[in-house]
């Protein structure tokens, strides 16, 4: 990296210095690249490689990592992630579909490429296109940071908090004794926030028994974790507005940090009906693609926290815009992260530059497991493990890590595996 940084003034020169530029005729780039040639740099994307990566771990089987590696004519490479749970092969194919947008193009024009991928896809992005764009966007930012010799969070204006990015782990404790163990471990590690869920699946209207069970579960968690730890509860959109409205009101005395996805994301007014009748803070957004999909949430003042996922919303560019849009409305950002480590590490960069950042998720427990071991083996540092309750900021340029193809190829793609499929007692389709 260092020799290239020393020379970067050369290859970052804009096209008007014709001597520094290859002949236009010799360049076989996409149309968009030609249009921007007079103001771009001499750096060119020369390769787009996709990697499906299936970790041999039960919890990771439905979400093989969708990684992309962009290569350039300067030797600098960028890595990005667009893991879409349950739809891995579709995203890998979609990244390939964008190859023509990229080969021969200048990687520095990240916003230009984002716009082109979004607008020129015509069918504005859904989760597959959004995730493919996310992978490419992260890789472009990685290259950018490396070429400019700066970690991405500095390019974005960070760090807001020099100590790092506050995070939370997941709690899967089923009884008070286990909950108290989590409390002790969190205290030992300096972790200040955790998240849990509610048991079972919920019909459109629910029985007294099921509602009481959910409320008692949340109460038991608060009682055993104590008042110092912030608690988020993920309803995972498995409750209807009718059921969620009852639950969020019942748990008001528990002072939760938030209740997440109290209903599915397609109907913003339905979400507003829930949030308008309770003081429990409401969070949502992990399934949303592009800032466009967050506009109504912000405009209508529906939620307190937005949780867009860097791997689906459309990468660093899109996550940053969501945060910018939420800031003047006093809405906090707590990004979702339950896929691979590249997207998670990329998120930390964006978090670090948000004045309205709340807390960063990672789908890991207070005690590291198999998955975290593999991540450490890849990066040579304990990726997405907190120190004193915060994710440390990387110091290297770009996204701040080195990764080789051989390392990810060690866990070859085993194909798309569906996410969980669950059913109610009458056999009808249930959400989880």
């Amino acid at each position, binding site marked *: 990296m260092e020799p290239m940084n020393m020379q970067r003034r050369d290859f970052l020169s804009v096209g008007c210095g014709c001597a520094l530029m290859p002949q236009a005729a010799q360049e076989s780039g996409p149309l968009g690249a030609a249009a921007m040639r007079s103001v771009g740099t001499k750096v060119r994307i020369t390769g787009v490689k996709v990697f499906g990566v299936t970790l041999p771990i039960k919890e990771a089987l439905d979400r093989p990592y969708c990684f992309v590696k962009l290569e350039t004519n300067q030797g600098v490479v960028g890595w990005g992630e667009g893991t879409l749970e349950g739809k891995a092969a579709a995203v890998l194919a979609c990244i390939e579909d964008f190859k023509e947008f990229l080969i021969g193009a200048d990687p520095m024009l990240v916003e230009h490429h984002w716009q082109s991928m979004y607008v020129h896809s015509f069918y504005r992005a859904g989760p597959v296109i959004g995730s493919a764009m996310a992978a490419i966007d992260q890789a472009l930012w990685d290259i950018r940071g490396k070429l400019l010799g700066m970690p991405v969070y500095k390019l974005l204006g960070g760090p807001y908090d020099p100590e790092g990015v506050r995070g939370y782990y997941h709690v899967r404790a089923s009884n008070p004794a286990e909950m108290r163990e989590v409390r002790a471990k969190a205290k030992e590690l300096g972790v200040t926030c955790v998240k849990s869920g509610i048991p079972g699946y919920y*019909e*459109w*209207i*629910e*029985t*007294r*028994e099921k*509602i*009481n069970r959910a409320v008692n579960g949340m109460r038991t968690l608060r009682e055993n974790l104590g008042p110092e730890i912030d608690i988020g509860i993920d309803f995972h959109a498995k409750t*209807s*507005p*009718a059921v969620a*409205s*009852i639950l969020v*009101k019942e748990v008001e005395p528990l002072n939760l940090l938030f209740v997440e996805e109290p*209903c*599915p994301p*397609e*109907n913003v*007014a*339905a979400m507003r*009906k829930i949030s*308008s*009748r*309770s003081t429990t803070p409401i969070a949502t957004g992990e399934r949303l693609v592009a800032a466009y999909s967050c506009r109504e949430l912000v405009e209508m003042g529906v939620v307190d926290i937005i949780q867009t996922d860097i791997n689906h919303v459309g990468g660093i560019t899109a996550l940053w815009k969501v945060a910018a849009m939420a800031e003047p409305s006093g809405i906090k950002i707590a990004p979702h992260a339950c896929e691979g480590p590249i997207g998670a590490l990329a998120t930390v960069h964006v978090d670090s530059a948000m004045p309205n950042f709340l807390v960063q998720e990672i789908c890991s427990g207070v005690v590291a497991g198999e998955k975290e071991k593999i991540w450490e083996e890849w990066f040579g540092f304990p990726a997405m493990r907190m120190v004193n309750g915060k994710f440390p900021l990387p110091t290297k340029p770009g996204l701040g890590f080195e990764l080789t193809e051989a390392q990810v190829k060690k866990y070859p793609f085993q194909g798309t595996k569906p996410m969980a499929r669950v059913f*109610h007692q*009458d*056999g*009808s*389709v249930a959400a989880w």
Partner: protein
Amino acid sequence: MIIEKLEAFPKSSFTAVKLTTRDGAVGWGECLPATPTAIAAATKTLVGQEASRYEWARTQVHGPMSAAVNMAMLDICGKVAKAPVYQLLGGPTRNKVRALTGWSEKALAAGHRAFVVPGTYTPRDGLDFVVDPERKLSAGQASSLAASLEKSLPLWLDEPCPPANLGAIKKIATESVTPLGWGRGVTNLSEVQNMLREQVIDVVRLDISRHGISTIRKAAALAETYYIAVAPYHAGGPIATAAALHLAASLPNFFIQQVPLADPARAELVGGDIERVKDGFLTLPTKPGLGIEVNEGTLRRMA
């Protein structure tokens, strides 16, 4: 499948309708008591028409008769296709149907677990309740009742007042989180759409004997994008119960079916104990059409 004959059997609490096609296929339906004028009008409309045209019939036959005609036409279609009606409609979406009935110890002993009660009640473990004040309250009283019911966790509060004034009932939905059910008296689907848009409804309660299978199925499609459940109202005869079971098995957002308490006379009328409940659930019919054999002699004899 050309309809040749419409016969109506007016009873004290419902009107049964029998359609017969030129090639001898028979379909049964049921609706709220229909007037002789309505029966004559439906007959004039339908005789000579293809029995599969139930969507066209929805626009031509008005009032409760449209429900009976819809069930009977679907019954014929199912019999001709040798398939239960829910298979014609893209089902089944479930393997059994959750039941709701009026509260009595007898109903509890019969296997029911969810009950309609007229007002406040004492919660009991393992049982669930729908509070139905039968529109006797004002919107303000209804709002107070809804708030006082919050801690009892009823399944929902049903039709506490007349729903005509959306502004008035919006107050109930805004002031508490007790779910609200409306719809038994609705005469046009646009009323349901208004309720959904105004966010005053948590359970769509169109009446199987007033609205029929197809209209409620459309209301369910509307409600689905609002994450709202459908739980058809039903206080009629057992032919309508059969129709309701097929409807339930064709909906993704069905929650519970109100059903009168089973008795031998009702079972005899439709040739089977379709209203029998086991641990809170009704069984799905499996025979073609509505899956019932209407006993015409019994039907003629009943009041």
